[in-house]
């Protein structure tokens, strides 16, 4: 769905992302994993066109001329949801559909369908984000991301701000949602366990560079750097 060729990101004198080649197949699930400052979030933000990058980014086989058109085929979920505080949950979910002048029937139908998928009753949807629990906010954020039925869903630490029980419940639900919808999913997390739970492929990053990518099993059996072994060991130790 996405392919990157020699894509790099520079913030002033800091290199946030070294020249990187990476492809995301349609329907695949990928987890970008690494410690803080490894460039995993930057890489995700490149895919949403939120940071200026050099190199070639292709979407659905062609280079990107109009980011807005690409974004309409993306869903983007961040830690704590990124919901607009001045809009109700419903308004947050419907904002783009209204902007694109969908019919009222079509909007209602799609919203009802998504509410069922993420398991959110009508009542919290009428509230403002500040009146919702963390778990509810993330469910609304996922509804908003899925509203236009995008091809790709980008998730930046979507579970980090939640308590353990909510996190476990939402993680299970999210996995089944994504497998049922067969979206291309890219997830950023600092937890290998979470990465393994969600994704077929793990991309381990450090200091703006990809260290190794593959399944957790491959990373364990044939680590191509001591860092890979250390990172896995550190996660296991906890």
């Amino acid at each position, binding site marked *: 769905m996405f392919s990157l060729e020699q894509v790099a990101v520079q913030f002033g004198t800091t290199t946030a992302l070294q020249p990187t080649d990476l492809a995301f197949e349609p329907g695949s699930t990928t987890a970008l994993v690494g410690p803080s400052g490894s460039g995993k979030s930057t890489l995700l933000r490149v895919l949403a066109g939120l940071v200026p990058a050099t190199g070639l980014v292709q979407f659905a086989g062609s280079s990107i001329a109009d980011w807005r058109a690409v974004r309409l085929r993306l869903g*983007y979920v*961040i830690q704590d949801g*990124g919901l*607009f505080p*001045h*809009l109700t949950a419903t308004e947050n979910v419907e904002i*783009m559909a209204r902007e694109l002048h969908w019919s009222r029937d079509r909007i209602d139908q799609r919203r009802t369908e998504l509410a069922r998928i993420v398991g959110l009753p009508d009542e919290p949807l009428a509230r403002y*984000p*500040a009146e919702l629990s963390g778990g509810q906010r993330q469910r609304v954020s996922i509804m908003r991301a899925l509203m236009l039925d995008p091809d790709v869903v980008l998730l930046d630490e979507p579970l980090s701000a939640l308590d353990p029980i909510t996190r476990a419940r939402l993680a299970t639900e999210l996995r089944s949602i994504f497998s049922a919808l067969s979206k291309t999913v890219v997830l950023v997390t600092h937890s290998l366990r979470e990465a393994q739970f969600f994704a077929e492929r793990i991309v381990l990053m450090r200091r703006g560079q990809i260290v190794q990518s593959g399944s957790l099993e491959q990373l364990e059996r044939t680590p191509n750097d001591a860092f890979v072994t250390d990172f896995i060991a550190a996660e296991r130790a906890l």
Partner: protein
Amino acid sequence: MNTAWRHILLGVAVALSALVSQHAGAQVKVGSKNFTEGVIVGELARLSLADAGVTTVHRRQLGGTRILWEALLAGAIDVYPDYTGTLRFELLADEKLRDDSELATALARYDIGMTRSLGFENSYAVAMRSDRAAALGIRSIGDLATHPELRIALSNEFLDRTDGWPALAGAYRLPQQPRGLDHDLAYAALDADQIDVIDAYTTDPQIGQLGLTLLQDDRGFFPRYDAVLLYRRSLESGAVAALQRLEGAVSTTDMQRMNAAAQLERQSEQAVAATFLADRLGVASDKRAGPGLAARISSRTLEHLSLVTVALLAALLAALPLGIAAARKPRLGAFITSITGLLQTIPSLALFVLLIPLLGIGAPPTIAALFLYSLLPIVRNTHAGLTGIPASLLDSADALGLSRMARLRRIDLPLALPTIMAGIKTAAVIAVGLATLGAIIGAGGYGQPIITGIRLRSTPLILEGAIPAAVLALLLQGLMELVERWVTPRGLTIRQQTADL
């Protein structure tokens, strides 16, 4: 049509006709400085013109020399009284004019004419109680040198000016060490025998009232401050002749009496001038009763509100786009905020003087000044409100695929709204206060009774302007708070809940 609308339309019509007539020249506009003698002489000029059949209006108590001069050059007024000394040593000091004929020549270069002296001069003098002066045998300033024990109190300005006390003491070899004292308090202190010698202006009403002796300036130390009328030379000959009728007509004692009638007896300047002209020149008086308190306050409220609302609306239209641009481009933002900040530092009086050549006097320059002062709070708060939106929200908005305009309309502005409203509220309250200064350039409003009250030391008059101004500021603030509550999105007023489900 209800009466409120009729009033507003009437106000607009009057404002428009004032703008038009500024160029039509059908009416002779007399101006006067913001002190009693100036206003009285302005009234004398107006009455004399009216008597000669010239349509005329008196824009009274417009600020100081600089404002009157600029207004005269700009044609916003046609006539105003001033003093030869002020013109030679202050206004045209750079030209080093040696006498009044050189002054007249210099004025002609600006296309300004000058009458001969009206008959009185208002210059610096040194005053003593007559009984004390007689007892000590003091008749001239020079006599003071032989009485080093005399207690001298001088107004601070005279004490500090290099051409004031230091020069005077040098010229007459005076040994005393004077102290600084407020000019009005000095008269009371002199009367109570706490001091012996003060500085005075020759037409001060207290001189006659307290029976003071002005010491002779036998060395001619003080320059002459003869009262004259300045007029635009484009004025019709009939009007000029009417002004020239006042040449030599007012003696220094006359002027002292008229000042006393206005300042000490609280008669209106109009009545004082009319009575004098009727007595001396047989000019028919046109004494009219002024409008009552309620009518005065309501018409000033209308004037004040129109100044403030027009300026604020214009500032809003300009400041919002500027604030948005500033938030988008950090470098441009720094430039815009520093320019609007710079505007804020220009003293309001200086700004008025700068605006007079462009916009004349009255409402237009006042509105322009209020507009410029209102920019900063609105621009700064728009900028702060927009740049204060969390980056994660803007990322979310962009990632959704919202266009720039849609994001601005649906996300950025609603989130910044509480901060922007606070800026507008600040601007409104500042504008209500500042608009009172507009009175010194003839814009009317609540400032009018305030400056008259300060001039006549009349607390009721000051309160007649100050109280409505304070009430208006509070009302406006209350109204803004209502609007603020009404426009602030409800989601922004809810406290975050901590419970997790």
